[in-house]
Structure formats: C-alpha cells, structure tokens
C-alpha cells in the first residue's frame, strides 16, 4: 500500500501536470476557463503578454490535460478538464495520507516504548543515562 502510494506520487507522467500548475499566469487561465468557457483572446486579456507567450502557456495547459481546446470555426474555446484536477488532488491526498499513517505508527511506537519502559527495568534507566 505504501509502495503503491510512492509510485503514484513519483510517477513521471505527473510532471506536465504539476509543471503546468507551477506558474501564476497558467493558474489564472485555469481559473478563468474553469468559471466559464473562454476564447483564447479572452484568456489572454488579463495578461500583458505577447501572443507567443500566451500561446505557449495554453499549449502547456493543454499538454498537461488541464484544459480542452474546442475549435469552432475560427474561434478557439477553452474549458477545464476536471479529470486532471482530480488526479492532482488525489496524489496529494495520498501523500498526506502517507504521513498520517507514519505519524500514527510513530505514536503507536512511542506508546509501546513508554509501556515497555514502565513495565520493566524502570530503575535501571537513570544509571545508564549517567
């Protein structure tokens, strides 16, 4: 189960997804397209950026599976793909679950140690520490 969690979180296929989300311009685009479908021009509007730069950001989002480009005549319309967002969320959840499990185990271990200490050789410990 733990091994499985690690493999998922370390899967190289996740690189494009987290790379795409690592930039504030692209996160803004995802947010805009998530609220309602946006044309390429509408997604470009809040950013004072050249179209090569805008175009590049859109391609990165598309390759990461975060947005879907629908071409209607001469208009390119972008919507978000929830699958990619769910995927990002689930691997992060797995990671936090992993630490929950580890911390629970640590807690159990400490509890066990304390119990053993108090059960036997209680008087021996201080002399050893000296």
């Amino acid at each position, binding site marked *: 189960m733990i091994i499985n969690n690690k493999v998922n979180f370390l899967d190289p296929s996740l690189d494009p997804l987290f790379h795409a989300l690592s930039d504030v311009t692209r996160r803004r685009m995802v947010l805009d397209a998530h609220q309602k*479908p946006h*044309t*390429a*021009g*509408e997604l*470009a*509007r809040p*950013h*004072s*950026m*050249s*179209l*090569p*730069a*805008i*175009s*590049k950001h*859109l*391609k*990165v989002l598309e390759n990461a599976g975060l947005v879907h*480009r629908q*071409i*209607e005549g*001469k*208009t*390119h*319309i972008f919507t978000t793909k929830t699958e990619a967002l769910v995927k990002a969320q689930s691997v992060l959840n797995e990671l936090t679950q992993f630490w929950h499990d580890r911390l629970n185990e640590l807690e159990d271990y400490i509890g066990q140690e304390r119990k053993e200490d108090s059960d036997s050789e209680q008087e021996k410990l201080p002399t050893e520490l000296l």
Partner: protein
Amino acid sequence: MNPSSTTSIQQLVIKRLYQTDPEKLYDALTVPEIMNKWFYGTANGRANFIGEPKVGADYTAEMYHESGESSVCADYAPHGKYLELERPKKIVFTWISEGFVDDSIVTIELRAVDGQTELTLTHELPAESVTPHTEGWNNCLNHLAELFS
C-alpha cells in the same frame, strides 16, 4: 459566443527610428534569412520565417521559446499573405493568428529621416488582441534594432 459581431476593431501604430538606410531595413523586414534573426515576439526565443517576399505569396512566421520544453513544433505561428511590396518604402501583408485573430492587415512604411529610417507599423486588430500584439511587435522591433546597433 459570437466574437465577430461584438468585437470592435482598433488600430495599433508603432513608430521606430533605425540607424540604417531604408534599403537595408526593407531587406531585414523581408528576407527570410535575416528575419530569422529577429522575428520572434518574446524577449528570448528564436524565429523560423518561411516565405519569399512576393506579392500573393504565403508566409508563416514560426516562433519558438528557446528555454523550457523542447519545441518540436513552433510555439506560435502567425501566417498570411503578402499584399504589397514596394522596396524600400512599403510592405503590406495579411496576418492570421489562429485562435486570436481571424484575419487582419499589417502595413509597414519606411521613410528616410536625417540618415536614419523611420518605421511605421500599423496593425488593425480586434480590440482584445491589441495589448498582446503591442507587446509582441515591440519585442520583435527591439530585436530588429539590435541588428543595426
């Protein structure tokens, strides 16, 4: 969603002075080998211009970002057709930017001024595309200036 009925057209005008004569500037604006040195709209990147300067001929201006992901295909590739070519005074071409601009016209005029050349670029565009195109053209024209500095 019907942008054609709602979008207003605006005129983008950029003027620049170059330390060269109109003939040399005209060639830098039309010869693909020279255009490859400057015709990319980002601060860093590279260009691959395809198209001979002939009236009626098509061109594609491929632009790549040097950094980041390895680019197999161009990051951005506006294209169009040459409408007018008058060396060393005037260049007119159509400009299509997939997804952003259906069809637009760019006019570049050159004029000798005190041993230098004044370039005037006029681009009629849907209002929403003016800001990113201003950014892109300014980047291109900055790279062009580096050829004559």
